[in-house]
């Protein structure tokens, strides 16, 4: 349960980080904040975290 709670908070933090990155991208699109390979890796991690925490929440709800 502690791990699932941590994943939920990680999802929140990564979402906040992406909001900041999106704002930065607005100032200079040439910096490739949203299109670089680093960003793609972060997006992959974010998606994985969200899926795992969401599935965990659904399973907990059915018990």
């Amino acid at each position, binding site marked *: 349960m502690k791990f699932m709670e941590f994943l939920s*908070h*990680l999802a*929140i*933090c*990564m979402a*906040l*980080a992406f909001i*900041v*990155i999106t704002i930065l*991208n*607005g*100032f*200079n*699109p*040439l*910096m*490739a*904040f949203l299109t*670089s390979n*680093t*960003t793609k*890796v*972060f997006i992959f991690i974010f998606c994985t975290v969200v899926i795992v925490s969401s599935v965990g929440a659904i399973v907990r709800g059915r018990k």
Partner: protein
Amino acid sequence: MEGRHSSPKHSAAPVRRPASNTTGAPEQRPVRANSEDEYRVRHETRVKIKADQEAENTDRAVQIRKPVKNRGDSVFRQVILDIVMTGVILVIFAFFHHVLPRITEKNTVIRPVSTVNVTQPATQTPEVTSKLPVTSDAPADPVETEPVPAVIDNRTEWQKKFADKFSDEIVITDNSYSSPNVSVTIDTFSGTYNGFYQTYYVADIYVAGIENFKTYFANNQYTYYGAQDAEAMARNSGAIISMNGDYCNNQKSGILVRNGEVYYDDPMEFDLCVLYYDGTVETYSPSEYVPADVIAAGAYQTWKFGPKLLDSNGKAMTSFNTTYVVEKEEAPRSGFGYYEPGHYCFVVADGRQNHARGMVLTEFAQLFEDLGCVRAYNMDGGASSVLTFNGSKYNIPSGYRELGEILLITETTDIDG
């Protein structure tokens, strides 16, 4: 009240308490007092009990509220922890996105993959290099360049067309330069433009041949994240006048042609500006060009910052292919304008300072339309906006920043660095 208790009629009667009152609890119903002292005692007891009850209620309320306060502290602590963790994630992102590439790839030199072949000779500048008696060595200081005598018979079409702009020998003033090959005049505007206080510089440029229009990378080589002082770059390249370029050093894609050499030829999402060998300039939206076709058509220089500022009729655009922030921000701006083959302009607007507010993109586009340009393209701005003349900064940049490359006008036709 006092008169009633002091009545002699009741003064001798003893106080009668009900038999059921054995708990010592305060008397609820009114009891006749036989003396002032007894009444005072009862009154004080009643007040004390009431105070005790109120205190008890207060304690109970505090006990009820206490858990709520603890819960609030926990949430607040968790929010703070989440914010800190968000900061850590951003630091990790910045390290991998920004710092690590600069460390590992800074000195990686990127070589051109091919050279643009100009199969058809440029109509405006036929064999400029073979006819113009230009110096072959890049001078450290353009002021010291020897006067180049004009050879009437060998004049290029542009020299004939703009004959009144060129001079037989080099003439330099504080804001102008003229020679048989180059004419540059810088006008400074400082005052109210569109209702706001602005300072901008317009360099009106005529060249005898396209080879007088060059670009120069930091340290004379295209390196990932390469950067150099703007004045040093201007001096090393022999630039008469130079302006910052498009910040191409942080990308490994898109179409990139510099001085006729092709570095990348990939499609990209940004507007493109192309200076062709025949001296014409075209600006394209991402859907309007194919990189291979642009190169095959004789691209001499390409820029990929943008956006383009004027439409195909030379009118200022009102919506741009860029982000909201770039469009609406009041910032220092740099732009490249095109009138006709051989006739161009560099425009730099100061900003974020007391003497200049800076321009939003619509104002900058309107400025190029007012100047009479038919094509215009936005370059990197902010602290990157630097205009140099004779090796020294001419504008007042909003900060210091090393540049990755510059656009320049030079007497020489070869840049060795």
